[in-house]
C-alpha cells in the first residue's frame, strides 16, 4: 500500500469526526489524538522493527521484548495499586509467560529463531497478558472488597488466608479467563483474527495463515491461564499480614 492510498484511508478518520461533531459527542479531540498517536507510534515501531530485523542481533530482540514487558507492567499496575508490590508481581508474571512460551516455540522448532517471529509473538503474548492482568486485578480487588465479611468469617473460624479468599480468587481467575475462551469459540465464524487477516492480505496461503493463527490462539490460552493464576497466587498473600489478619481490616 502506497502513501497515496494511506492518505485516502484518512477518510475513515473523517467519518467518526464528522459524526461526533454532528451529534455533539465531543470526541473529535480524542479521535484526533488517537489517530496522530497511532500514526507516530506505529511508524516508529515499524522503523525500529526494520532495524532490528536487519541487525539480526539477539541483544536487540531482548531489548524489544524488555521494553514491551516494562510498558505492559507500567500500564497494568495502575489497576492493582491496592496490592502491595504489584509492579514486580506483574513483571514476574509477564517474564515467566515470555520465557515459557518462547522456550516451547523455539525449543521444539515450532517457529523460526528469528526476530521476525520472536518479536511479534512476544508482543501478542505480553499484550494479552497485560489485558488479562488488568481484567484479573479489577475483578479480584472488587471481589475482595465486596466479600470482606466472608473472608473475615473464615479467618474468625480458624481458616487460613488462602481459604479466606479462595472463592474470591477462583471467581476472579475464572472471570478473567472467560473472554479469551469465549472469543475463541466463535473465531472464524464471527470475525477473522487480525493476524490471520493480515497474512492473507499480505499474500500468504489461507491454510498456512490458519495454521499460524491456531498456534497463536493456543498460546493465548496459556497466557490467559498463567497470567490469572500466577498473578492471583502472587497477590492474595499481600492482602494479609503475618498474623493472618486482613491487612486493611479496621
Amino acid at each position, binding site marked *: 500500500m502506497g502513501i497515496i492510498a494511506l492518505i485516502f484511508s484518512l477518510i475513515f478518520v473523517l467519518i467518526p469526526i464528522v459524526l461526533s461533531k454532528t451529534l455533539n459527542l465531543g470526541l473529535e479531540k480524542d479521535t484526533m489524538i488517537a489517530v496522530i498517536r497511532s500514526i507516530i507510534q506505529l511508524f516508529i515501531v515499524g522503523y525500529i522493527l526494520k532495524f532490528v530485523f536487519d541487525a539480526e542481533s539477539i541483544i536487540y530482540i531482548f531489548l524489544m521484548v524488555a521494553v514491551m514487558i516494562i510498558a505492559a507492567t507500567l500500564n497494568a499496575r495502575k489497576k492493582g495499586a491496592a496490592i502491595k508490590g504489584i509492579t514486580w508481581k506483574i513483571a514476574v508474571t509477564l517474564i515467566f509467560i515470555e520465557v515459557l512460551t518462547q522456550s516451547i516455540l523455539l525449543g521444539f522448532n515450532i517457529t523460526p529463531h528469528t526476530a521476525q517471529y520472536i518479536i511479534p509473538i512476544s508482543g501478542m503474548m505480553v499484550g494479552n497478558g497485560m489485558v488479562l492482568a488488568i481484567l484479573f486485578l479489577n475483578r479480584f480487588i472488587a471481589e475482595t472488597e465486596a466479600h470482606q465479611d*466472608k473472608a473475615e*468469617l473464615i*479467618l*474468625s*473460624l*480458624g481458616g487460613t488466608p488462602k*481459604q479466606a479468599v479462595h472463592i474470591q480468587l477462583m471467581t476472579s481467575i475464572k472471570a478473567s479467563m472467560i473472554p479469551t475462551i469465549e472469543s475463541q469459540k466463535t473465531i472464524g465464524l464471527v470475525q477473522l483474527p487480525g493476524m490471520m487477516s493480515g497474512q492473507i492480505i499480505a499474500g500468504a496461503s489461507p491454510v498456512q495463515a490458519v495454521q499460524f493463527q491456531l498456534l497463536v490462539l493456543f498460546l493465548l490460552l496459556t497466557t490467559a491461564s498463567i497470567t490469572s493464576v500466577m498473578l492471583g497466587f502472587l497477590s492474595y498473600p499481600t492482602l494479609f499480614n503475618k498474623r*493472618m*489478619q486482613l491487612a486493611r481490616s479496621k
Partner: protein
Amino acid sequence: MKPAIQFNSVNYSIDGHPILRNISGAFYDGEITTLVGPSGAGKTTLLKLCNGLLSPKDGDITIGNLNINDYDPVELRRTVGMALQSAPMIDGSVHKNLALPLELQGKRLPDIQARDLLNDVGLSEDFLQRTSKELSGGQRQKVSIARTLVNRPQILLLDEITSSLDQVSQKEIEELIVKINRKYGVTIVWITHNLKQALNVGAYTWVMMAGEIVETGESELLESPSNERVRQFVKGELGWGSLH
C-alpha cells in the same frame, strides 16, 4: 475469680487515630460479660483483638496463661470463637455452613453432630437442607452461633447479634446464649445495644465510650451508675440507648 481474657494497658489505633485507649481489666471465666456503649466506642475492635482478627499496638492481652501474640492465629480463633454482627453465610445449605469450620481443617461434619448443633440453637433438623438465603434474620443468627460452636470454643464473642432482630427473636437468642453458657461453661462476651438485655443476661458489664472503659462491674451498675456520662447514657441523653 479466674480471668478468661486479661487486658493490660491495651491500645489500638488506625493510621495514628486512637480507637482503644488504655484498656485494662478482665472477662471472667465461664461468665457472660456484656459490652455496651455508643457507636464508635471501640467495642467491635475490642472483640476482634480477642480472637486475633486484629492485634494491639501496645499493651498485653492474656488468654489462659499465654500472651495472645504467642498463640498460633488459627489455634487462637478456634479457642476464641466469634459470631459476627452480619452473620455472613457462605452460599449453599445450612449443613454446608455448619460444616465450614471442620471443612477448613479438612474434616467432615457428621450428620448427627449437625442435628445436635441445630437442636442446641433451637432449630429443627429440617433446616439442614435449606439454603442460607431462605433463613430469617433470627434463624441466620442461630445458624451463625451454631457454626461458631462447631470448634468447641472456650470463649464465645458475640458482636451485636440481635441488633436487627424483632423482640421475639431477641428473646429467643438471649435464652439460647444463657443455655449455651450453662451447658458448655463457655465464657461469653456480648456486645449489645439493648441495655435491658445487658442487665438481664450479663453477669458483668463494661461500658465503653470513645475508646475507653468508663465503668465496669456487675451488670446492676446500669441501674445506678457512678459515672455521670454512664448515667446520661443509660437515660438515653447521649442520643443512644436507654434502660427505661
